[in-house]
């Protein structure tokens, strides 16, 4: 089981109780640097969850987020962990996204959508568990293998200014083929063309940051 934690252990513990046969809990927490009381409150909440898990015989791992407001970095961290668990053949029963800062919760929801993980919310007032319908968007359903190959190449070489012709030569495809795939990728909002910094007649292909979130570790 995965979860996010803020100040309230009550936002996480009900899901541990309602999920059968939990062997391991991984939860993400981090203190708001602008709130002087946050480190104490987060630490107390973490301690309560760890104690609860210990008494239930559940292996619990708390992952400290260096910046609980850095949406992209949180999403990348969580996705990496989820994929590692999947690779290790572990079944992920549920992800509780109720606790933590808003960016932490939203980043966790994003990962659940991209990875197809069952997601649960705990209502702030009633403490009722709300299971969200599984909404899975797999990039391999919306991107062709050639488009994925181009995106991976662009991500690996994101610091290199590359024109369409250079890209074609680097991935070993005809310029017309690359042009066709790039048109599709631009329409899907995965890449854009920008003016070449040194030659105004040329355009360079830029991959958008969101593509890294979409492809995850696969790059």
């Amino acid at each position, binding site marked *: 089981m995965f979860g996010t934690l803020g100040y309230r252990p009550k936002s996480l513990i009900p899901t541990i109780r309602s999920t059968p046969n939990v062997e391991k809990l991984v939860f993400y927490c981090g203190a708001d640097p602008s709130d002087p009381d946050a480190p104490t409150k987060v630490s107390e909440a973490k301690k309560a969850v760890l104690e609860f898990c210990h008494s239930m015989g559940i292996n619990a791992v708390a992952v400290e987020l260096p910046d609980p407001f850095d949406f992209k970095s949180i999403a990348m961290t969580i996705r990496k962990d989820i994929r590692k668990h999947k690779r290790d053949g572990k079944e992920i029963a549920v992800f509780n996204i109720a606790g933590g800062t808003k960016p932490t*919760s939203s980043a966790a929801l994003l990962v659940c959508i991209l990875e197809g993980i069952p997601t649960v*919310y705990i209502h*702030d007032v009633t403490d009722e568990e709300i299971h969200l*319908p*599984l909404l899975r968007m797999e990039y391999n*359903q919306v*991107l062709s293998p050639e488009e994925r190959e181009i995106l991976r190449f662009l991500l690996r070489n994101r610091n290199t200014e590359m024109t369409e012709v250079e890209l074609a030569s680097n991935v070993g495809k005809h310029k017309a083929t690359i042009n066709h795939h790039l048109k599709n990728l631009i329409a*899907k909002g995965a890449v854009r063309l920008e003016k070449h910094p040194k030659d105004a007649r040329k355009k360079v292909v830029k991959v958008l940051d*969101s593509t890294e*979130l979409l492809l995850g570790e696969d790059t």
Partner: protein
Amino acid sequence: MKVLVSTFGPGDAGKVLQAMAALPYNRLILVAERPAEECDGLERIARLEDMIGRTVGFERIVGTKFMQVVDEVCEILDRCSRNAGTGVRNDLLLNISGGSKILGDAALFAAFRLGVTAYHCDRRITRLPVIHGATAVDRFTKLQSKLLSAIGDGATLPEVVDRMQPAGKQAAERVIRELRKQGLLASELEPGRVRLVLTSQGAEAARAIRAAGQRTPS
């Protein structure tokens, strides 16, 4: 026209201003759970927009349950995607950083359901990996989509086969097997018959198919 839709709540003016500065738009719509008079910061945003002769649209969410909020955000996005007078399609951008946690997450969910370009604008601007125009519907074949829509509140096999015409019985049964395997369909035993019903995932897929059907391609 580019329409920027942003979730909003008390104290969120800074996040909306970040979105206004970073994203191109012609019209701004704020989506909030609280009434306009309770949202401090709204006046400031309205004043800034007024300087360039624009007004700020304000849409209030009344539902409190997660999926109710998702449905309301989807309705708002659908409304904003067309010009009310001319019917011409607008380009939508969605910022999910404002408002309560439930509103932000529901907006994120809605963005994926409808394939709307979305951002999280706070201290940093993060574009979310929503593929423009790609929705949950892309997971399904035409027949699978038709069957998910045909089930409604539940139906027996002969009823489903009837609703799937001109596809034949064999095709309908094959699609039922496929959707069962994906966990989207379940069976309920009733006296003398078996009813096919949508699971919660199946119901969400059917909602997404309905939503996509209402939106003409951009």
